[in-house]
């Protein structure tokens, strides 16, 4: 367990009797030694919670979750918990629901502040290609992040927007702590947008993609051949773009493909089979037409639950029941919100809408947590010992509009859901005789 405040106080007091120089050195040492921990979390035992583990333990009533050093230390079913906890804090959940923090995906969180203000947008670039790493532009101080926390979202997959080339760039994973160290993984998937084109044919991109893989395989075969002949010579370093293609071919990172029409989805499944790439479908409006094929190929799908209108000829089969149909077919689902990044806190309501239209609650929770964590290899998304302590304590059913986040933790550290919106609301609901600008 961590140093408790009392010990720290004692230690500080004792420095008074030491020489000033030593004090300074000690203070510095103290700062260096304990600052990361001070920023980090207290150890906490949450007792009497209804724990949605999203793991083999299912839902545990009157359960206890212990977190320390930013990780989940133990999960105890009712009656299994020790009588006393040696933690900094014990929190009685009073039966409330504790879930893993939700994981949003495929948005520009931290890359955009105001949609129509070009100089606050960093999600796309004319020159962006397969190597584009937008994480360099990620702003953890964006006002969108505390607002998103209101939706119980603790982690997010940030995606670049559609580029002009074949690939839009690469995604990255962040937590929503708002800290400068909130990027978890950079360049964790390659993004491509396929389907109908304003100019030209959809076939062109599919063909290019196939050729990229074929050429890379050919090149590496040739290079291997050369190596055998000229053992002394170093092979020329691969171009950066080629390295990414090879990473896809080696299954080191997945290809995230936006596509809607069934023919595009099938073409992607064929590429997966041909090159053994790790494929994730995004959008996939027509997925219900080829649900069995997608399930058989073990390809996960990221989709919105509310995309039920035929917005284009690529998406004539949208329905509020699609998630339920895909889940029944055995497709691994991840839920994303429709629209821009400012309202991703809607994720939980979108899950509720999917449940109202036939998706099981179990599958809905998976689509918000464990499935995303598994696909993007994040150590979160379940309430299991060893996972990051990304947890949300809810006032009631997390999918209901009437519920709210009571408490939440990211890496074991308590985080607030207060946002700029709350500050504005407080200012304008106060009684005052002075202009509002004087109120905080």
């Amino acid at each position, binding site marked *: 367990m961590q140093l408790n405040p009392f010990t720290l106080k004692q230690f500080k007091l004792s420095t008074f009797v030491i020489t000033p120089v030593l004090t300074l050195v000690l203070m510095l040492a103290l700062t260096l030694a304990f600052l990361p921990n001070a920023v980090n979390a207290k150890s906490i035992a949450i007792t009497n919670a209804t724990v949605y583990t999203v793991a083999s333990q299912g839902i545990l009533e009157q359960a206890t979750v212990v977190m320390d050093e930013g990780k989940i230390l133990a999960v105890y079913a009712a009656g299994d918990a020790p009588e006393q906890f040696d933690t900094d804090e014990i929190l009685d959940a009073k039966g409330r629901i504790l879930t893993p923090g939700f994981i949003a995906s495929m948005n520009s969180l931290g890359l955009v502040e*105001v949609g129509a203000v070009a100089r606050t947008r960093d999600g796309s670039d004319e020159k962006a290609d397969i190597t584009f790493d937008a994480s360099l532009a990620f702003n953890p101080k964006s006002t969108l992040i505390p607002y998103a926390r209101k939706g119980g979202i603790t982690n997010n997959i940030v995606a670049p927007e559609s580029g002009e080339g074949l690939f839009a760039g690469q995604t990255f994973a962040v937590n929503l702590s708002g800290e400068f160290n909130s990027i978890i993984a950079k360049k964790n998937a390659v993004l491509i947008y396929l389907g109908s084109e304003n100019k030209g044919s959809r076939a062109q991109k599919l063909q290019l993609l196939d050729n990229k893989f074929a050429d890379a395989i050919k090149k590496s075969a040739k290079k291997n051949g050369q190596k055998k002949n000229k053992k002394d010579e170093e092979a020329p370093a691969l171009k950066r773009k080629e390295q990414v293609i090879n990473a896809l071919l080696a299954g080191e990172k997945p290809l995230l493909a936006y596509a809607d029409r069934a023919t595009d989805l099938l073409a992607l499944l064929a590429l997966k089979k041909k090159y053994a790439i790790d494929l994730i479908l995004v959008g996939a409006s027509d997925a219900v037409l080829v649900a069995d094929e997608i399930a058989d190929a073990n390809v996960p799908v990221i989709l919105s639950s509310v995309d039920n209108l035929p917005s284009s000829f690529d998406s*004539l089969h949208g329905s509020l029941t699609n998630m339920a149909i895909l889940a029944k077919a055995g497709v691994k689902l991840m839920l994303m919100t429709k629209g821009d990044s400012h309202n991703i806190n809607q994720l939980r309501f979108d899950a509720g809408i999917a449940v109202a239209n036939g998706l099981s609650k179990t599958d809905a929770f998976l689509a918000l947590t464990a499935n995303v964590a598994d696909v993007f290899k994040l150590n979160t998304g379940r309430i299991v010992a060893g996972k990051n302590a990304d947890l949300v304590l809810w006032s009631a059913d997390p999918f209901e*509009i009437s519920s709210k986040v009571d408490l939440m933790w990211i890496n074991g550290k308590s985080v607030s859901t207060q946002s700029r919106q*709350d500050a504005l609301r407080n200012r304008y609901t106060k009684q005052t005789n002075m202009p509002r600008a004087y109120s905080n």
Partner: protein
Amino acid sequence: MYKTSIKLSLIITVMSLSLTACLPNEKQDAKVTINKNPYPSTYQALPQQNTLFTNATVLTGTGERLDNADVLIVDGKIKQVAKGIIATDTVIVDATGKWLTPGIIDVHSHLGVYPSPGVESHADGNEMTSPNTAEVWAEHSVWPQDPGFQAARAGGVTTLQILPGSANLFGGRGVTLRNIPSQTMQGMKFIDAPYGLKMACGENPKRVYGSRKQLPSTRMGNVAGYRSAWLAATEYKRAWDKYNSDYALGENPQAPKRDLELDTLMGVLAGEILIHNHCYKAEEMAVMIDLGKEFNYHSGTFHHGIEAYKIADELAQNGNCVAMWPDWWGFKMEAYDMVEENVAIVDAVKNSCAIVHSDSSTTIQRLNQEAAKVLYRANDNGFNLKVEQAITWITANAAKSLGINDKTGTLEVGKNADVVLWSANPFSVYAQAEQVFIDGAKVYDRFDEKYQAKSDFLLGQE
């Protein structure tokens, strides 16, 4: 000279006397009138069924909640709302455990004018060729086969106003429709609903026209544009008023030259057409209120009103309705100061008229949930709002904004029987509209395919 002038004046007197005497029959040209309803509604209610809903939780739209109550609809009207109603020759719907509300009304929709699929050939919602296109009417762009109408009906929407887009200072007329399937716009048109005129403040007009190096490129340019138009409209109306009064006096005046743009603006000045003003910011809404006073018209309903909470008192004092999203924000600078309690803060003022609108083919399907977000977020933060108040934001207040509150928007006796039967409390994420009635006719049933209309567009698509 002297004699002559007496003679002349005599002649003139005689002439004018004779003119007055025989004008109505002989010397007056036919009166020129403006046909104010050239595309009249052909709407007819679908087959009506007298229905008694029993034992429901009823939100009347008047701010009341009645538990275990019955609602009787007869001949397309609300006949009775009470406990233990006994009626014969009616279909009886056991609504035990279910909720009943007035039909949902969306004051801000682009269904039909920006339909699905969103192909270029369908982008008919905004005539972005001049900052003042008061002459265009959204009804002339409505594609009744937009599948969005069916989806909205499944969400309980019985009435909706279709507005032009917001690129122009004056975007044109909006039209209020009944949400029934029809081959024609006229077949959906709400009988006797007043027209709306779409105006737009702020970023959109100045961006669209400023980028073309023409007025407006600034917010002050926007206001100059409105004022010039209202000046012209004032002159136009004066000319028509003079023509009409001179004609009534028996003279034979020359009718003013018709101008479609000014016809619409004159309709506003005459109080016949209601203003629907896309306007986000507090300071701009305050200017638009004064603009209305300057030219003697009412500034109507503010749409989007992201910052309405900053001037809630002024808006209520001036009798403005404000139609708002629960939580959209940040897509542009003028939408940056969103608060989730906006609707609740506006609603809390006496004589206010707070509305939740969609402006979206997605959220129009769940306006009940959009209202729920306001209700619960406000209650999380010190408000004490009840479901019976929250329902007024998507029913009665919306009807008031559209000038149809004498016909729909509440479950008061005598009103049109526009009714939604919900599977549960409509402010729950799990609630579904099970049956929807317009003028006493069932237009949607979640469990009966006979009452699930499908657009021509989706027919035969595999």
